[in-house]
């Protein structure tokens, strides 16, 4: 029973803190703080990634053999935690967290050699061709087809909810290469060069007016056979490997706790109209306290999973617990922020970005102006990456044997 890090890990933690103090620019921090979407814009993500890569840390989740620093689970957690506390931009994980591990786990030597360095350098920017309009939570019902013609596949179909497809030059994609009895069979994992006329990207605006996701149409897209990862029909296995990476092993509580601290400060400075502050309103305080306690509990749960991972025990279905709780806290927190700003929290301006030279003069304050778009985009947290309903099903099946 000991929540502290080892001395070695504490030394590592100080290294990370020192790096962040030196390298994280105010501009990057501001851009992160003023991002109302789930992911930061490409230029911010890549700007930060380049600074990390100079230190060899961009592939912080990767083993040394793939070009990463080969950190332990605890070191990765410490890194993410310190980045969160320092307000560093989130790294867009499509390449670093999803495509990379698939390639160094299932890829050929040639694929590793070609793709991995380009992911780290940011030369390749990835998007994920998983979901389709008719296959949201029911991923296996996908209908995009890839037909083998000699040395290449011809891919037809469309993908939906494709985050940052408008920035990406590569897409990893699940496509049906064979009709089988079970929908999970006959799926292959393909890497598609976006730079071809057969690939069309159409924006799908969120309810907050943000352009983050897209529909991607594949009309006879060309994919050389050597850009298939794994064997033909191995796609579902790889997809599951990738989904577990998407859901697992991250560190969410520290950023939630940082945001709750900021919200408490904010509330202390917001008048209640009767001579006191928002912290004199019991109903607001009650909600804030409940979220704080839940975030403290979540942090402990994350650390428990981490200490088990450190002993080689994979979290399995327990990552679904993390996902449910994170979505719940974030959505309530983002609503509470809207409420904290009273009338100014109802504003929804559509100009973007909200940082840098083009930010313009905010309504009320920049935090007030961010509140509504963040709240609105935050509704997606219980939908993407496996909806709340899917996560409950996973827990019932994997943890409760129901």
């Amino acid at each position, binding site marked *: 029973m000991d929540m502290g890090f080892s001395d070695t890990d504490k030394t590592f933690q100080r290294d990370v803190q020192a790096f962040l103090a030196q390298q994280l620019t105010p501009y990057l921090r501001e851009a992160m703080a003023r991002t109302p979407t789930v992911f930061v814009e490409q230029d911010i993500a890549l700007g930060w990634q380049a600074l990390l890569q100079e230190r060899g840390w961009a592939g912080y989740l990767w083993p040394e053999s793939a070009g990463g620093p080969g950190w332990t689970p605890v070191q990765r957690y410490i890194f993410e935690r310190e980045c969160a506390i320092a307000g560093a931009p989130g790294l867009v994980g499509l390449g670093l967290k999803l495509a990379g591990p698939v390639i160094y786990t299932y890829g050929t030597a040639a694929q590793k050699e070609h793709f991995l360095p380009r992911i780290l350098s940011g030369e390749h920017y990835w998007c994920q061709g998983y979901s389709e309009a008719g296959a*949201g*939570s029911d991923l296996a019902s996908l209908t995009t087809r890839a037909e083998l013609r000699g040395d290449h596949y011809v891919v037809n179909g469309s993908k939906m909810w494709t985050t940052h497809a408008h920035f990406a030059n590569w897409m990893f994609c699940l496509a049906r290469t064979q009709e089988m009895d079970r929908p999970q069979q006959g799926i292959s994992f393909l890497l598609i060069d976006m730079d071809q006329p057969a690939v069309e990207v159409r924006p799908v605006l969120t309810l907050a007016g943000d352009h983050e996701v897209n529909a991607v149409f594949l009309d006879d897209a060309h994919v050389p056979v050597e850009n298939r990862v794994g064997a033909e029909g191995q796609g579902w296995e790889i997809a599951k490997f990738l989904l577990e990476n998407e859901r697992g092993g991250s560190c969410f509580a520290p950023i939630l706790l940082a945001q709750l601290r900021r919200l408490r400060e904010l509330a202390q400075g917001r008048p*209640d109209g009767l001579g006191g502050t928002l912290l004199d309103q019991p109903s607001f305080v009650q909600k804030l306290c409940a979220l704080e306690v839940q975030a403290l509990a979540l942090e402990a749960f994350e650390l428990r999973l981490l200490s088990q991972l450190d002993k080689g025990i994979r979290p399995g279905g327990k990552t679904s617990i993390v996902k449910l709780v994170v979505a719940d806290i974030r959505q309530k927190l983002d609503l509470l922020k809207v409420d904290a700003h*009273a009338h100014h929290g*109802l504003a*929804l301006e559509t100009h973007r970005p909200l940082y840098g030279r083009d930010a313009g003069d905010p*309504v009320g304050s920049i935090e007030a102006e961010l509140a509504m778009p963040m709240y*609105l985009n935050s509704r997606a947290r219980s*939908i993407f990456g496996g909806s709340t309903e899917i996560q409950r099903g996973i827990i019932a099946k994997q943890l409760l044997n129901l």
Partner: protein
Amino acid sequence: MDFDFSEEQELLRHSLTRFAADRYGLDKRRHYLASELGYSRDNWRLLAELGMLGLTIPEEYGGMGLGEIERYLVMEQFGRCLLTEPYLASAVLAADLLLAADSEAKHVDNWLPRIAAGEAVVAAALAEPEARYERCHVGLRAQADGQAFRLTERKCAVLYAEHADALIVSARSSGGVAAEDGISLFLVPPAAPGLSMRPYRLADGTPVADIIFDNVLVGEDALIGTPGTAYPALSLALDKCDLALSASAIGAMRAIFDATLAYVQTRQQFGRKIGSFQAVQHRLADALVRIEMAESLALRLLAEEPAEGTAHRRLRAGLRALVAETAIEIGHEGIQLHGGMGMTDELDVSHYHKHIMVVRSLFGDPDHHWRRYATLARAA
């Protein structure tokens, strides 16, 4: 005892359904919102022709002289079609303020007929950034200067202020910043020297503005009613506005619920309609229960003997709180059950939800109204 609407009321509802079918739909609405005005002058004229703008204005001022039942019906339909026009701002709030506050009838002759005819849009500048939602908090100062007044400080989120023909401004002529006594109302031209606006949009596209008053000089004739006594009128108008906002929220939540019900009956996942999943069924059943309760409470308010006093005002505050909380829950469920599609600008579900977010908190969020309810319940 009867909870049905009368034949005339049903006709009114019907004429609005037709208006909405002709003039609304997501694309048309987008178009109205994208204009500089933020709404359609054609719709506005049409609403005037239908008598809607004078619905609750007395006949002597060119209105129809109807009551809150009719207003409820109208606002509920406007919530269902996500009306973009300044109905609530001008025909409800400003008209009610004038009727309640203009004890010396200096302004009603001039403005009410024009509001009813759609010739003027009047905006009420009440909210302030430091006030949160407290009605008695008025920090904008009205300093007497001979027979005139000088207005200083700021208002926020003033509905349709930028293109309004007149502003009704609450100001403090005496008393502490959160005292009920000492509040006055003024009718101020938007072009008055020293007055500047920062226009922006609320989540549902409603055009609003923050307004800075830098020593704005207004004559004694700008006063509405006697100085320092405006609070009861202000509070009455906001009480009535609460019901109108609740009606709009009920319309919007019914629309989300209907859309969601239709969606789960067609959308397939895992080889089945998602409406066949028990967890989905139980959640929609619970949603219906909550909607029915909120709507029943609204009908109760309409159907009770004409009542004033604490019990009635308490019920109003309770209704606003219950409807606001129900509406956001229904909105969240609607988005969630639509999955990714609920998150997009493409379906109307998200637009309804943004409207719900606005009517949920305008002039008071649920916590505010629960506190009001608790205070009134204790006083009873």
